[in-house]
Structures are given as structure tokens and as C-alpha cells.
């Protein structure tokens, strides 16, 4: 289960940011920076998923040979 700890961490961080956004826990001054951080986490997670997907397809293709 620990194969992808960074992904899980990133996801947790992202969720924290979004939750705080929704509950108005940030100062307006912080908003832009937090939004930027959130976008970076989203990109990181999506990249990770894409990479994982490619790897899985490759492994499946090898198994079917």
C-alpha cells in the first residue's frame, strides 16, 4: 500500500487546501499563493496517475504476450 506514498501525501495536502478554501480559513492575501500550490499538487497527482496508467498498460501487455 505504500508504493505511492508521495501521491497520497500530495492528495492529502490538496484536500486540506480545498477544505480551508471552502471554510474561509485563508486570508485573501494568501489565496493566490494557495491556489497556485493547489494547482501544482493537482498537476503532480495527474502526472503520477498518467505515468502509473502507462506502466500498468505496459505490464498488462507484457503479461498477455
Amino acid at each position, binding site marked *: 500500500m505504500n508504493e505511492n506514498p508521495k501521491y497520497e501525501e500530495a*492528495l492529502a495536502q*490538496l*484536500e486540506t*487546501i*480545498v477544505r480551508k*478554501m*471552502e471554510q*474561509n480559513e485563508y486570508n*485573501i492575501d494568501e*489565496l493566490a499563493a494557495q*491556489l497556485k500550490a*493547489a*494547482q501544482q499538487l*493537482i498537476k503532480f*497527482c*495527474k502526472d503520477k*496517475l498518467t505515468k*502509473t*496508467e502507462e506502466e*500498468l*498498460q505496459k505490464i*498488462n501487455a507484457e*503479461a498477455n504476450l
Partner: protein
Amino acid sequence: MSEHYTLRQLNLLVREAIEETLPDEYWVEAELSECRENSGHCYMELIEKDEHSNTPVARASAKCWRQTWQMTKPYFERTTGQLLRAGMKVLVKVYAQFHEAYGFSWIISDIDPTYTLGDMARKRQEIIRQLKEEGIFDLQRELRIPTFAKRIAVISAQNAAGYGDFCRQLEDNDYSFRFEVTLFPAVMQGEQVEQSVINALNSIYERIHDYDVVCILRGGGATADLSGFDTLALAENVAQFPLPIITGIGHDRDESILDMVANTKVKTPTAAAALLIDNLLRILERLDDASQRISNAVNQRISSQKIKIASMTSLIPTLTLRMVGDQRHRIDTIGNRLPIAIERRLTNQKHLLESLSIKLQGFDPQLLLSRGYSITLKDGRAVRDPKQLKPGDEIETRLEKGNITSIVK
């Protein structure tokens, strides 16, 4: 009375009297108390016993001349399966002969073997009745030939063709079965059969745990005297023997009593061997069948597992990719909440600012001026109390549409 006869003269008178009074042939039933062949002739001793006391009540010698004997003997043996011998009941056709030198004798001109056959059958019935009365007639048939019967004790004549056939048949079986055959030699014809076979059974009994089954075999050779197999003592021994006994004593007439009490009877030694091979073949077939079924079951199990694995394998790509897809969806969902949250936050702030600006507008002095109020200033500051002013001060009054400068009096 000085006249007397010589013995010969007197005997001749007897002969004459007999030939005159007994000119015919007669069928007579009697028991043989002696019977022997000599120079192709057969010499017998006929006897009649008292039915109850068993003591002889009549006795006479009888002869069967070669010419007749050559015809009647084979017929008798073929019909009864037995040699003419002492103790037998016979029905013979005789005529009387008194020879002055050799004395009285019945001369046999024919023998009816069916009478002897009937008598033998009666005796056999008597033996069977006795065996049943003793409760041992069916004992052997309650035994079972063991599943793996391989150690065979054989009672047979040492050099009998039948025994050779039996051994060859066992050795040459098509299935590579190995039998262990031990021969217990015995006399298999004539009057010694009974004691000889009983002795052999006793020898086997001493090593009974070394054997699975007993075969009593006789075959080949002349059609011989089988009467030895029809005795009470032998039947009792066979019936009560603890191992199953197979008989192959080869004769096509009625069963012998030995056959009746044995566990299994077959016609020939070869058939006995075939039976033993079949017995092992049955277990071989059961084993083959079992191993076939095991391998079928295993194969079935393996192939069902293969199908299971294959179907799971085919699911893996879908499942793993779906997991990735789910995660992607989750990220998107979370990501989508961001602009909404930010938008709402900014909107709130805007509203706040707006309401603040409205509140602020209420404080604009121009609004008061336009309603006709005016503000008095001195040195640029609003005058709220006349005490702030003294005569001669210059004040400025702000109106909606302009300013007035005045001097206080």
C-alpha cells in the same frame, strides 16, 4: 454199496445237473468283493450282504472271459467314469458253469453299467445328505478367493500334463502377474486318492499363512477312475478347509462331490489358471479405473482453476486502469471545488466592500449641503460651538452650490 464215484464222475453229474436245470442266462445284482484281471480275463468275487448286519449271505466267483471283457470293460468305464472294483454294486448277466476240475463259477456275458451308475448316484446322494447334516456342505462357498490371490498351493500328480498346463498358463499371462505356485504332490487316481489328497491338505494346513488359495488339479492322461473324489472323508476335509479351494479335476460327467463342496469348480487346470488371472485382472481394472478417475478429477480441477485465473487475469487491466481513472476523477472533483471556493470568497469580499462603500456614502457632507444644510468652517475646521468664535474672526460657510466668507460681529 461198494459202488462209488470218482470225484470227477461225481462232478460231471453235478455239471450235468446244473446244465440241465440252469440252462439260461440270468441278470443278477451283487456286490463285488474282489476283482482282478489276468491275461485279459477278469476274475471277480460276487457277494450279497445282509441289509442290516452287513454279513455275507451269499457268495460266488464269477469270470468274464477275454472276448466279453474286451467289449464290456471300456463300455462300463466310459459310462460310469470308473473302473470296476471291489465294493461296487453291479448288475451282470450270467450263466452257470460247473467245471469238474475248477468248480462252480458264474460266467459273465454282459454288464449293465447304468445299474452301477444308479448305485453310485445313490451313494453320492447319501454322502451329500450326510455333509449337509453335518452343516459343512456349503462352508467352502462362504469363503472368498482373496483379492490379491497370488500364492497358490496346488494338489496334483507330480508330472501330470494338467499341472504343466496350469503353470504355463499362469506364467504366460498377458498382464505380467507373478504367481507363486507350490506343488503338493498327490495320487490323483485309483483308491489312494482319498488319503493322498487329505495328506496334501494337511501339509498345506501346516503352512496355511503362506497360501491364499488351494487348487486341486487333475487333467490329461487316460479317462481314469474318479471314484476316489467321491468319498465322504475327502469331502469333509475339503469342505472344512479354511482356504478357498478351486477344483479342476476335468471330467465331463456329473460333478463329483469334491466339486460340489469346493469353493469354485472349473473343468480343467487351464480354466483354473484363467480364473486366478481373471481374479487379479479384476483388481487391476479397479485400480486402473480409480487412477483414471483421479487423473480426470485432477485435470478437471486444474482446468477450472485455469479458467478462473484467466478470467481474473483479463479483469486485472480493467481493474487497475479503473483505479487510476477513479483517482483521476477524484482529483478532478477536488480541483473543481477550488475555483468555486475562490469565486465565492472573492464575491463575498466584493459584497462586503460594496456595503461598506454604501455605508460610507451616508457620511458624505455634500449630501447634507444638497438638502439645504451648510457647514461653517474656521481655518478649515468645522465650527460646532459659537464659543469657538470671537468677533472679527473670519469664517467660511459651505453651501450646496458655493462658499460664503463672513466676519463675525
